[in-house]
């Protein structure tokens, strides 16, 4: 009897992911912003890959670091060459989940507060993150927004003393993604 219920539970779980409600984008937007005394630096990436599974809460991101665009070409070069070392570590990834995904009702338009937790990998360093954001449900589509801070030293990205007043030690990350239902 017990075994039977376990099997049924497992089947239900796997069935859940087969008939998943998966949402995806390849053109999400991430901005990073460094506010240092001498210089304000911002960069935009409009090729952010993200997918969200409403049946499990699974939420992933994959960002090609070379796709960040800066106003100054030299900054872009230094970002890739000296800081994130994108030849060695080409992407930043996030594997996690929306912890309160059950609150989200795809049939009901509205703005939902969500908590996202998981593991962020950047510059070869993986760290747990737990941030709040919002997901707006509108006509069967999802619009996710979040803003949080990253401490560069946590990811072993060091700022040399000479540019200590040009680059902030804490970078503000803004995420803005429009997810469409995945074509399965």
């Amino acid at each position: 009897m017990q075994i039977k219920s376990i099997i049924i539970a497992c089947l239900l779980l796997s069935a859940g992911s087969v008939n998943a409600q998966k949402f995806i984008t390849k053109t999400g937007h991430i901005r990073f912003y460094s506010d240092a005394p001498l210089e304000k630096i911002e960069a935009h990436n409009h090729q952010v890959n993200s997918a969200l599974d409403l049946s499990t809460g699974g939420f992933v991101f994959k960002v090609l670091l070379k796709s960040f665009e800066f106003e100054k070409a030299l900054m872009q070069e230094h970002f890739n060459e000296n800081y994130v070392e994108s030849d060695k570590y080409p992407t930043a990834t996030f594997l996690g989940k929306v912890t309160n995904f059950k609150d989200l009702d795809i049939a009901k338009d509205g703005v939902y507060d969500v908590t996202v937790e998981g593991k962020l990998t950047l510059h070869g360093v993986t760290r747990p993150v737990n941030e709040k954001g919002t997901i707006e449900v509108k006509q069967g589509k999802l619009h996710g927004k979040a803003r949080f801070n990253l401490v560069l030293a946590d990811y072993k990205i060091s700022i040399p003393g000479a540019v200590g007043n040009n680059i902030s030690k804490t970078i503000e990350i803004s995420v803005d993604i429009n997810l469409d239902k995945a074509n399965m």
Partner: protein
Amino acid sequence: MYNKFLFSLIFITAMLISVAHAQEELMALIDKDVQPVTDYTAATFKTTRIVIGQSVELPPQGNMLFLITHHFGAINTGYENLFGLKQATIRLGLEYGITNWLGIGAGLNTDRNTWDGFVKAKILRQSTGARRMPLTIDFFANTAIYTTKWADPDRTNYFTSRITYAFQLMFARKFGNILSLQITPSLVHKNLVPTSADKNDIFTLGAGGRIKVSNRVSINAEYHHLFSGQVVSTKVYDSFSLGVDIETGGHVFQIFLTNSFGEYEQTFLTETQGKWSNGDIFLGFNINRMFTIVKPKVVREL
């Protein structure tokens, strides 16, 4: 009771596996249908010069490079001459990136008050991904006009006698993050040479490279071999320069030792009179400062 515990344990494990599995599935979903893009190799060298000669780099599109080049006098001239500090040749130059493959530049040299102007184009760009290219190949052409008074005003002098040209092909490859190498065949044409035994067209073959010792510091070397029998009326040597690049964010400083006093291609390729083994070594530096003239369009919002 025990069964209940076991059941919960299995259930939680199944749940965790399911979540991890779901995330991997999502990642696979993201990676599906990803079109490979061409990834052009950036920053083969820190700046447009390896040491004293051209590298395959150009200022990025819309960017202006202000380049100050300074060579002191020869170190072996002793304390009376403060080991060369009392003399200098200077070149003030501007370079502009019209596109990411085409650049132009101009400079003023204190050596014979020479004005030079050049065009530099990337024929091929090293890349990986959708299109793979092992090398970057550049073409460079300059024209230099010296504007000091005629050395011999009594003879018939033609304006064209003031003009010289240099042409270069550069073959460069960035081997990973640390090592970059470049081969540079050059042709210098001088409309007027001192004697009939001297050739108007002078061929050289150069090689240079850099080794990064950190993300911001590299050691660079550059050598140009002048084939014999071309410059005969004056004693000239191959040019060899050894330097260090220090990048500080907005600037790249290049500090070097060279046996060439001149700063534009025609001079250091064909008129290098210093000899390393004699101590005819010149201390020099380049200061590279990049200015953004035309900002690229960065889309800020969706």
